[in-house]
């Protein structure tokens, strides 16, 4: 297939390796080494997209991440990628891309008609309309949303994987252009660990498209030589296709490495992209610069391009994107594009230079080639619709603010523009450094940052190649030295580059038209978002003066190119409209990401089953094999209930609850937090943390305690056992374990370091099987013969060391069911063995495994609270009817005690824990139901409290609930109501919160 714009000199593409691809359904051919952009240009594709607001046809403008127009949807199906820039997509066989806007096609877009009404859509027009009638806004919005947006998200899960790599280095060099390469080389020579990352497929940066010799060799040969020197150093890691997209605090930088995107979508060769999380001692930023386009009327017509991009396509890709070039410039530098174009064998119609007189070496060279140079002229308007047909040029005054003479038209199909260069200060700006405007170079320079970094080369405003190479080398050796390597001296001789003298550029951004901007054809500043010079001036007219206001009002810089081309021009136009300098107008703050970054890569592997670790007990497999249904409790998977075949959840839970009360049940309690506490001051410390006292707790004894935050609210609860004089074991709730440990450490380390006490989490060291029910002692007796199990020798709230099922065990007689209970703890690895032995021993009593749901029902029957369910961070022990757990005689003001005396905690009508007994025994109130006195009162109703726990109790054959009710303890016997969403309500009587065995006799046997 013929590529009409392909030159005979191929640059870095390979003519022997053709690649087939489709764009908007049409087949094309490009070459290996092409980007999608260069291949499209090679094939003469003019229109690649439609603009966001006015649906104007748009062509390729740039050659890198600055591209505002060439936004495509790549591929289809689950691996489709929205919003890629054609300039950053490497060509591969079978590539399939579509424009993101345009219906029925980008060439004929009916929305283009909207563009004809563009005048009705100035910036902010939607703030001024669509308000009436009020109810129609959601309809208006529906159509606004449909018209907005670029590509489409996939509709299925991502088939690819992503990974992360944590890295440390001495010197991170960002960018492998000339300055980055010399920096990496010098830093590498010191032996420092160096990472050099560059977003492109190969190192070299701007030099890949340069015709300027270095050290008497071509720039590409110099790159090859330098890269090979770097490659020879094992201490230097090279990352290509790797964008440093964020610079965070303390020299933490993030790099997105695209591993397989150049091979095709969903290429199954490991992770698609890799996120490097780099902590660098020193950073060298060598991120280059972006050429600034000139703003003039209809500068958005396909065929208006960046001058440097035209050179890049010619020199690097062997593609001439047109036939007849008009070059519009404000500086000498861009003259190189005229030379490159001339050398490609195509026609340079004219160079249009806004400066009145210029005669630098490049200018002279161009003149010597016989190319017409119009000095003191500007391109004021591009002609054409879907491709440039000509350029209107006119003489300008010296400041470039006014057209001073007749307008003439030059016939051309390509207008290359250059308004100078803007340093890419993005990463430096991420650190919080404010860029500083420098009139001398007509660019921002990096501001002063708090990080260990320096900028070199073009991103530092040093646009001269020789200077940039030197800056890079100096910075590389300096950074290495500061990181502890080398002597700070440059080791290699500096490459010899013929520095071309350049005459002063003109600081000109908007080329004036014969008409004022408000009346001239649109002069686009931000192509992606259709922000024009007139739009910015309108914002000023309306009183928006701050650059941030103007950006927000017009959307300047909010596109996927993040204003890499438009922002500075926009600021300059704003400054002009305000009659002030750019420096006075403010600065520009860039935020991560430097270029858009795949969410999947930021998420990495921590999704799906790895989103959060799952914690299993030693008995977990057994539960699975029995068909347990699990509940998430913190990170733990706990059996919720154990359904037999055909059983519903309620049937299973009822069966489990009845088994515990009538014979014996077994619960996996391994997940409870366990903290081993030792030290001579352990008892004193524990007593300060709990509401009750442990000073008199004897070895072999346990006590239930409640822990408060210093604000007096319940924070955790559990049993604490005295193992020996200076040794305690504290149980915490399953979810609270880590928090309690940190809490204990906080008080000991920061408040009472004089107390000698030490804490160790032993949650994972023990497996715990709880057997509970009237037959618990009978089963225990079968598996344990070295503990006297009689009630007077091993009573309630005692613990004993012994041997259970042949295993060394700690057995606790504590109970959360109100039944005779043994909590048997063994070394975790024996957990399943213990469990199976208990099941075997209990078989004759029909021992029944039960889950957390039955556990909840059983404890609710007893009125035992669950912290976090019956309490919510606003509940004191008194609120929970637990005054008995507050040690009245404690001399030390335990944590939270003083707060209990605050006026609000002493209020009469605080919510108190009560029981609710429904008038209809089978009616189970939904947990979370609100309680009112009268369900027929008008809204808003006065709420009395809410239901915290609610179940059907099979043992009581009655629905039961725990609730917190204002002044509840004084309201026993009152009937209250729980209104439901459907208008019905459940009536219930306020009763004592203990429903079963109120005297607690069953656990004491």
């Amino acid at each position: 297939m013929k590529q009409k714009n392909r030159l005979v000199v191929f640059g870095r593409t390979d003519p022997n390796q053709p690649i087939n691809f489709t764009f908007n359904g049409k087949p094309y051919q490009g070459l290996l080494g092409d980007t999608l952009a260069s291949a499209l240009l090679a094939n003469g594709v003019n229109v690649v997209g439609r603009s966001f607001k006015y649906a104007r046809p748009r062509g390729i403008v740039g050659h890198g991440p600055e591209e505002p127009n060439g936004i495509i949807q790549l591929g289809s199906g689950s691996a489709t990628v929205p919003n890629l820039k054609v300039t950053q997509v490497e060509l591969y066989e079978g590539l399939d891309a579509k424009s993101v806007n345009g219906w029925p096609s980008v060439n004929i877009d009916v929305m283009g008609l909207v563009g004809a009404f563009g005048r009705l859509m100035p910036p902010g027009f939607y703030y001024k309309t669509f308000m009436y009638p009020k109810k129609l806004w959601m309809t208006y919005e529906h159509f606004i949303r449909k018209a907005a947006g670029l590509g489409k998200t996939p509709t299925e899960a991502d088939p690819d994987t992503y990974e992360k790599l944590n890295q440390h280095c001495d010197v991170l060099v960002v960018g492998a252009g000339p300055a980055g390469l010399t920096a990496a080389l010098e830093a590498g020579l010191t032996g420092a660990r160096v990472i050099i990352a560059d977003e492109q497929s190969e190192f070299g940066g701007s030099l890949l498209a340069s015709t300027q010799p270095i050290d008497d060799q071509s720039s590409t040969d110099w790159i090859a030589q330098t890269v090979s020197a770097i490659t020879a150093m094992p201490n230097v890691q090279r990352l290509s296709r790797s964008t440093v997209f964020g610079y965070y605090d303390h020299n933490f930088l993030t790099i997105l490495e695209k591993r397989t995107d150049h091979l095709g979508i969903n290429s199954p060769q490991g992770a698609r992209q890799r996120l490097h999380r780099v902590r660098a001692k020193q950073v060298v930023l060598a991120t280059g610069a972006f050429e600034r386009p000139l703003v003039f009327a209809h500068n958005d017509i396909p065929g208006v391009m960046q001058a440097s991009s035209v050179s890049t396509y010619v020199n690097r890709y062997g593609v001439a994107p047109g036939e007849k070039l008009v070059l519009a410039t404000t500086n000498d530098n861009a003259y190189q594009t005229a030379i490159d174009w001339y050398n490609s064998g195509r026609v340079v119609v004219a160079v249009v230079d806004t400066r009145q007189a210029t005669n630098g070496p490049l200018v002279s060279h161009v003149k010597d080639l016989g190319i017409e140079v119009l000095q003191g002229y500007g391109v004021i308007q591009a002609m054409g619709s879907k491709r440039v047909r000509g350029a209107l040029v006119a003489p300008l005054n010296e400041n470039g603010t006014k057209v001073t003479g007749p307008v003439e038209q030059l016939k051309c199909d390509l207008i290359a523009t250059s308004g100078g260069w803007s340093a890419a200060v993005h990463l430096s700006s991420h650190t919080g450094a404010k860029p500083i405007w420098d009139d001398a170079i007509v660019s921002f320079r990096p501001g002063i940052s708090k990080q260990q970094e320096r900028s070199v080369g073009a991103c530092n405003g040093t646009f001269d190649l020789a200077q940039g190479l030197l800056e890079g080398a100096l910075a590389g050796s300096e950074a290495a030295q500061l990181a502890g390597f080398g002597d700070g001296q440059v080791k290699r001789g500096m490459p010899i580059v013929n520095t071309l003298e350049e005459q002063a550029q003109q600081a000109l951004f908007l080329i004036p038209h014969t008409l004022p901007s408000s009346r001239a054809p649109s002069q686009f500043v931000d192509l992606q978002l259709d922000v024009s010079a007139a739009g910015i001036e309108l914002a000023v007219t309306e009183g928006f003066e701050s650059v941030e206001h103007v950006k927000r009002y017009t959307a300047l810089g909010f596109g996927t190119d993040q204003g890499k081309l438009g922002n500075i021009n926009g600021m300059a136009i704003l400054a002009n409209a305000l009659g002030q300098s750019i420096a006075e107008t403010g600065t520009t703050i860039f935020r991560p990401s430097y270029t858009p970054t795949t969410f999947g890569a930021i998420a990495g592997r921590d999704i799906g089953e790895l989103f959060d670790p799952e914690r299993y007990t030693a008995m977990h497999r057994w539960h699975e094999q029995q068909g347990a249904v699990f509940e998430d409790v913190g990170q733990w998977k706990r059996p919720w209930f154990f359904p037999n075949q055909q059983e519903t959840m309620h049937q299973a839970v009822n069966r489990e609850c009845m088994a515990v009360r009538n014979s014996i049940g077994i619960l996996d309690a391994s997940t409870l937090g366990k903290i081993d506490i030792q030290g001579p001051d352990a008892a004193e410390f524990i007593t300060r943390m709990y509401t009750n006292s442990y000073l008199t707790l004897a070895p072999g004894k346990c006590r239930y305690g409640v822990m408060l935050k210093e604000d007096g609210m319940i924070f955790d609860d559990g049993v604490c056992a005295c193992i020996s004089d200076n040794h305690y074991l504290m149980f915490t709730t399953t979810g609270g374990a880590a928090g309690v440990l940190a809490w204990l450490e906080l008080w000991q380390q920061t408040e009472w370091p004089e107390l000698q006490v030490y804490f160790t989490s032993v949650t994972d060291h023990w497996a715990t099987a709880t057997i509970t029910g009237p037959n618990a002692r009978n089963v225990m007796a079968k598996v344990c013969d070295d503990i006297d199990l009689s009630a007077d020798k091993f009573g309630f709230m005692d613990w004993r060391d012994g041997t259970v099922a042949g295993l060394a065990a700690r057995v606790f007689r504590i109970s959360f069911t109100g039944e005779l209970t043994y909590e048997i703890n063994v070394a975790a690895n024996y957990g399943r063995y213990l469990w199976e032995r208990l099941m075997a021993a209990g078989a004759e009593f029909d021992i029944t495994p039960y889950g957390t749901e039955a556990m909840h029902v059983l404890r609710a029957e007893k009125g035992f609270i669950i912290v976090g369910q019956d309490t919510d961070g606003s509940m004191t022990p008194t609120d929970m009817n637990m005054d008995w757990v507050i040690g009245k005689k404690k001399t030390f003001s335990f944590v939270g005690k003083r707060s209990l005396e605050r006026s609000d905690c002493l209020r009469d009508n605080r919510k108190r824990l009560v029981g609710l007994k429904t008038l209809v025994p089978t009616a189970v109130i939904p947990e979370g139901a609100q309680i009112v006195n009268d369900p027929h009162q008008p809204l808003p109703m006065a709420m009395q409290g809410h239901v915290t726990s609610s179940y059907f109790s099979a043992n009581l054959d009655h629905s039961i609930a725990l609730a917190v009710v204002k002044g509840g303890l004084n309201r026993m016997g009152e009937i209250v109501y729980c209104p439901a969403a459907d208008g019905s309500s459940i009536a219930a009587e306020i009763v004592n919160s203990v429903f079963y065995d109120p005297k607690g006799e069953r656990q004491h046997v």
Partner: protein
Amino acid sequence: MKRYSGFSLFANALSYHEKWQKVWRKPIPKKEYDVIVVGGGGHGLATAYYLAKVHGITNVAVIEKGYLGGGNTARNTTIIRSNYLWDEAAQLYELSLKLWEGLSQELNYNVMFSQRGVLNLGHTLQDMRDIERRVNANRLNGIDGEVVSPKRIKEIAPLINTSPNSRYPILGASWQPRGGTARHDAVAWGYARGADALGVDMIQQTEVTGIRRKNGAVIGVDTTQGFIGARKVACVTAGNSGVVAAMAGLRLPVESRPLQALVSEPVKPCLDTVVMSNAVHGYVSQSDKGDLVIGAGVDSYNGYGQRGSFHVIEHTVQAICELFPAFSRVQMNRQWGGVVDTCPDACPIISKTSVEGLYFNCGWGTGGFKATPGSGFVFADTVANDRPHPLAKAFTVDRFNSGALIDEHGAAGVAH
């Protein structure tokens, strides 16, 4: 004030948009005002607007150190809802929601309030209990809401992953249909334009450097433009409340923390509601422009840097990819941070102070944007009448001494 309409747009188009009126004046500060509002964010501007509109107090200045609406107003994720747990908070946010519902017309400025509904997801049994409790409380407070099943969630947001095999499967959600989003900048600009039209002076690029008092009463503020007298000073300086309070020798129970957010590149409509998940720590909606607007949790440390830590962003994006596996291939476009003033109970302070004529409105934490109209309304009333508005009574600073906290994070589970 010239009204905006489709007609005015057309008429101005005919004159090439050269004749639009300024949205607000650029006045020279007067010597003295009846009320100075310190802070030109959404809340401050709303306060000034309602002082003028409802209370007829028009000799008012808003003093802003940067530009109007440039703080958290410009940095939030624009979510609006009123389904708070406790009566006090719910009623305040519901007042705000009701004001939102007529705000575009009230201000003659389209704030693009989009009532697309808000889902708060539950992933554990306890989440569901809390959701049930909150929705019941909302309903009995006259606030719309229902508990919805995974099937219904999938209908509302088809790309959401409701698989029971997820690490933390979605068990249900609360659904508030009247909730939604708005265009954040427009809110500030709309209030500013409205207040300006009523005579309020917008004084930008002017920093308050001191609060002058005499005999225990406020007499004005020192600024970078000199002293400006005032009978009353109302401070609404989210992100800097503590710093401003210190100027009057006051302490506040607020800590300033970074709160981060991010947006994707714009994509075609793919999410028609707001989805929030406290358990997996992320929330997302899609702006009218097409960006997925995503919020993270608050960074753990105090910070005024408008920056946070990257691992917080990572965790949030993990949550979003977990909830919406199809978003994995979408790209993050921009990421930023705001500074939120958090109170120990995740509820604001709207309060008189021990200094006569000095008032504070702060501590909105992560919930400030949605409260903008209601906050301004009750604060203006509090300032105008020198006593707490009935809905502001519970939000005095005294509660941190008495213990009468309104613990929204402990119980509601959702702070944003």
